[in-house]
């Protein structure tokens, strides 16, 4: 193999691809704009809607309570709700969003509370509606405050300390390092995105450099040049790998910047942002793990797309591969799926899982080594197969 020739092919393919709108879209525009827009945009929108729902003063219907002036006076003074006239159709009104919740107060509420009897209050709300849930929480808090005040008063009368109500205070201390805390949130999503984006970035150029060349009639042109088939595959492969890694890199950078901005916007705590040193180390390690996987994708995609006669036909071959990659990558989300001696040999899932651990600040060096080696083996197999196919004139000149 001549590295010099492979680089000539690579430089030409790079120049060619950078002039191709489809590659620019999948390699640069999608990772920079689409994924951050979808992920960060969705979280920002949901934050906006939740904030709006929280700020709303809900319409609440009080059923009963006419015989309890103390309670009614307190409810009237409670600024966080707006009491509406009683109506028998409160369920329909909640479902029609005319009111957010209703509360049923038993007869003689004031008297029962004064006597120290247990009083049952029912709150009606819709679990489907977040504003209704917030309204139910608000009214529940109102009654809990009355309950606590009543209990404290009863203790004072009996000369008992307030601690009687809460004889044991249970405190929880988080011992997880900050990066792991971040990891628990980021680590679940990022490895999946990196893997999917690596594949996504490699797909269009792989199809363009194989089936696309056949379709445009340039395959025969390059085949009659003195460049060897192996050099040709390597030149093309390097381009596919470049776009694959560039896509993943741009997406991570874009998502990190967007998440920092979004956190600033919503005022989230500093603990939920990735410290720069941790980010650099973890992302560098994640990239090292993704590299052989990206090689595997590039080789496999080149081989697969080479069977097709046209770009469109190649798309139909590649679509199932997407599913084969997304499924194991997404499996790492599932609770209980962890790195062990079985999962480390399952391609894609192993990288997704180990990246999850790395981003959570855990480095199992034994597993990392084994996964890296196994990914390299899969990558070598895919590349060897691609080289073999490029030497198969039946596949290469299929028309």
């Amino acid at each position, binding site marked *: 193999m001549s590295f010099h*020739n492979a680089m*000539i*092919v690579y430089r*030409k393919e790079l*120049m*060619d691809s950078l*002039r*191709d709108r489809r590659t620019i879209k999948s390699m640069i525009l999608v990772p920079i704009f689409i994924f951050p827009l979808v992920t960060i945009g969705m979280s920002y929108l949901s934050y906006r809607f939740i904030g709006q729902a929280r700020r709303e003063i809900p319409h609440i219907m009080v059923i009963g309570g006419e015989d309890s002036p103390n309670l009614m006076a307190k409810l009237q003074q409670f600024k966080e709700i707006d009491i509406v006239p009683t109506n028998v159709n409160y369920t329909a009104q909640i479902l029609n969003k005319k009111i957010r919740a209703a509360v049923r107060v038993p007869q003689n509420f004031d008297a029962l509370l004064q006597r120290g009897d247990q009083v049952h209050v029912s709150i009606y709300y819709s679990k489907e509606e977040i504003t209704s849930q917030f309204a139910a929480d608000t009214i529940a808090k109102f009654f809990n405050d009355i309950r606590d005040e009543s209990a404290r008063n009863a203790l004072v009368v009996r000369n008992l300390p307030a601690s009687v109500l809460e004889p044991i205070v249970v405190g929880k201390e988080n011992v997880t390092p900050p990066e792991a805390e971040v990891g628990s949130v980021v680590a679940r999503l990022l490895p999946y995105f990196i893997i999917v984006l690596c594949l996504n970035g490699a797909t269009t150029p792989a199809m363009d450099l194989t089936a696309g060349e056949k379709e*445009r*009639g*340039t395959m*025969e*042109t390059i*085949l*009659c*040049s*003195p*460049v*060897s088939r192996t050099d040709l595959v390597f030149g093309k492969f390097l381009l596919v790998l470049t776009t694959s890694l560039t896509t993943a890199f741009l997406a991570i950078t874009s998502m990190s910047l967007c998440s920092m901005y979004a956190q600033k916007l919503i005022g989230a705590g500093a603990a939920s942002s990735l410290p720069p040193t941790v980010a650099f180390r973890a992302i560098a390690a994640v990239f090292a793990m993704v590299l052989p996987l990206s090689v595997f994708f590039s080789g496999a995609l080149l081989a697969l797309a080479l069977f097709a006669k046209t770009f469109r036909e190649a798309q139909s071959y590649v679509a199932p591969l997407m599913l084969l990659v997304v499924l194991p990558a997404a499996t790492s989300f599932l609770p209980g799926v962890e790195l062990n001696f079985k999962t480390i040999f399952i391609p894609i899932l192993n990288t997704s899982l180990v990246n999850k651990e790395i981003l959570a600040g855990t480095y199992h060096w034994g597993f990392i080594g084994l996964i890296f080696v196994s990914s390299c083996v899969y990558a070598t197999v895919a590349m060897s197969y691609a080289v073999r196919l490029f030497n198969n*004139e*039946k596949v290469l*000149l299929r028309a």
Partner: protein
Amino acid sequence: MIEARELTKVFSDKKRGEIKAVNAITFHCEPGEIYGLLGANGAGKTTTLRMLATILRPTSGTAIVAGYDVLSDAQNVRRKVGFLSTATALYGRLTAREMVEYFGRLNGMDGESLRHAVDEIFSILKIDEFSGRRCDKLSTGMKQKVSIARTLVHDPPVMIFDEPTAGLDVMTARTVLEFVHTCRSRGKTVIFSTHIMSEAAKLCDRIGIIHDGSILAEGTLKELQRRYDTADLEEIFVQVVGGEQCLFTTQ
């Protein structure tokens, strides 16, 4: 020179079984000579030329091209060959200059020598005025000129033309034929395949009539005319391939 020895190519097809596209073809072509492969569509011309250009590997037999064996030294054969056919398209997103320079680099040229060679060919073929335009924006004639420049950039001693005028208008076809003629004048070994009788008669020093993968007759135009007792190459061709294959005569 080119020397084809018992060159054979068999394709296997799931439905049709084994298909012998080229059957033990033997011929030779000397420097400064144009050898014409004359045959109908599907006769085996393209397969033969693809084997000579090492795009396809012969099933049996071999060929020596510019001193190199197509089986054992394919890469060196490709260094010595310029291959032009209607199937050898241009990279649409590259400019004419980038396209030709790319093939120069693949042929081991670089720097000043490459620039000089490209400038010279562009000047001869009058490509200068559109050398900075992307190939997908060029007219068919311009594209054909760029393709010619692509085959010539490394100044190969052997030129292989596979129906280079197919689908071209009269003026563009004329430019291509003039170029083929120039190659002979420059002492190159030229193989030219066509199914157009007038092209073969006008250009070729020797003609091989190919049918069903075999060369059935070979010689200079004069020799063929003498042998088949007619001046018309089309008539000669019909006699050689088995005669009355005309739709109307069977009725």
